[in-house]
């Protein structure tokens, strides 16, 4: 601490700027690491208790296999290539369904948000469709589109559509009307009005919609794959359940959780980049 003042004065000199920038980067890394470690405390305790309880025979291996045997199952699945194959197929389904659903949601949410007429025309129908649960329409989709990829992708898309649609609509309607006057004074045409004002102003809501939509895409995937399929992580779980292979069920669940978390982190990264202008409350600092 006694060095602080000297460091500040030294920081003004050009040759030490590099040094202080490096130091700052190191500090940021440190903060990042300690954040990750903090997040790991709770899961690690749970894992330790779980392992101990299993090893001591307090809980049955069949119902709740210990972490080490789940890890073993993981290793086997990975080494046979079964895991990667299933994961790839599931990712493609979720990705395709998400892109279709979220893309349409963005487009229609944009149209309905922009014009009152299309809102009156389309929004009531969408709101009606929104409340229909996945499980209720899944049999219909299978009846119409068969057991193939199409019905699965459409089911995922149906789920992914609504969060983006609703949030895009809300985002557009929430644009500060005072900024529209500015756009008029600056002579924005329709296209510029959309790209320079409405889209960036609605971006926080759109990204929130995308985050929610990604989560629902994974949920839709599970429903789709459990309804009937011969590949994918959902199928892997169903198959293992039939043979009471609880470790594999757990492995599948963990993969879903990890995939969900990774995609969510990607959107948050995008959020941090696109919304860095936002000046908002970041939570209290300090102890829990």
């Amino acid at each position, binding site marked *: 601490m006694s060095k602080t003042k000297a460091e500040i004065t030294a920081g003004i000199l050009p040759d030490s700027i590099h040094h202080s920038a490096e130091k700052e980067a190191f500090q940021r890394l440190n903060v990042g690491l300690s954040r990750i470690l903090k997040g790991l405390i709770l899961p690690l305790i749970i894992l330790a208790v779980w392992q101990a309880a299993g090893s001591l025979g307090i809980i049955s291996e069949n119902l709740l296999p210990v972490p080490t045997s789940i890890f073993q199952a993981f290793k086997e699945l990975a080494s046979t290539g079964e895991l990667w194959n299933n994961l790839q197929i599931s990712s493609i389904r979720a990705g395709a369904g998400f892109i279709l659903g979220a893309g349409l949601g963005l487009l229609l949410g944009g149209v309905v948000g922009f014009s009152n007429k299309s809102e009156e025309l389309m929004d009531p129908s969408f709101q009606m469709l929104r409340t229909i649960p996945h499980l209720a329409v899944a049999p219909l989709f299978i009846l119409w589109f068969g057991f193939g990829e199409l019905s699965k992708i459409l089911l995922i898309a149906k789920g992914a559509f609504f969060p983006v649609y609703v949030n895009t609509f809300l985002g557009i309607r929430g644009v500060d009307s*005072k*900024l529209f*006057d*500015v756009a*008029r*004074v*600056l*002579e*924005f045409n329709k296209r*510029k009005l959309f790209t*320079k*004002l409405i889209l*960036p*102003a609605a*971006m926080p809501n759109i990204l929130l919609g995308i985050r929610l939509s990604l989560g629902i895409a994974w949920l839709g995937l599970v429903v789709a794959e459990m309804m009937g399929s011969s590949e994918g992580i959902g199928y892997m779980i169903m198959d293992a359940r039939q043979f009471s292979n609880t470790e594999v069920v757990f492995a599948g669940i963990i993969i879903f959780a990890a995939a969900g978390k990774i995609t969510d982190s990607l959107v948050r990264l995008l959020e941090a980049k696109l*919304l*860095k*202008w*936002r*000046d908002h409350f970041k939570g209290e600092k300090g102890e829990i």
Partner: protein
Amino acid sequence: MSVSIRSVSKTFIKGRQEEVKALENINLEIKQGDFVTIIGPSGCGKSTLLKILAGLDRQYEGSVQIGGRPLHGPGIKQGFIFQEHRLFPWLNVEKNIAADLPLSDREVRKKVDDLLETVRLKGFEKAYPSELSGGMAQRTAIARALLREPDVLLLDEPFGALDAFTRTHLQDVLLTIWEKKRTTMILVTHDIDESIYLGNRILIMTQRPGTISRSIPVDLPYPRKKSELPFQQIRQKVMIELESAGLFSEKMVKG
């Protein structure tokens, strides 16, 4: 450019039947390069008049011509500075100034750099509006309007929300710009000192219905000193006018 306003009236419809005359028979000729300040109590219609000049309000009677041509709606040639800065919060200072124009264009880049110099914002070009003080944000808004090289700059109580020091500083910035570019300026205010400090002509507006009751020329050389006698004499003139119109309120004395 010159601005000519001929028998402009505006009526608001309030409730079902009730009509409120906001402006009545306003006639005004403003020469190219004039700095006109409009002073009057809140609610006298001075902001409404400014909105009409900007083309933002099209529901009025009479005619408005800018540079001899009838006004057709809002546009970059009638620059408008709002009471709040109204910057795009997702753009940094230099991008806000450029707004829809590409900074990659060498000409735009140069103009933006020059303007950053003029409004004294060098070093803050990458800051976001949320990181700026009120005065800096308003300077950015002024630069954004100036980049479009407006024929006339309309300012709607632009410094009303700022503290006294920042306000004086921005008034000087505005005068520097005016002396450099000779843009026609029309500034609405309820601060008597501000109207005398800036304008070479003061228009006094009275309310219900809003009309321009008096035009007072100010022939003092710039920069003006608020403490000196000629300034105070004009101040007195304005006050007498306001008092005789029965408009004087405590709030206006404080400025």
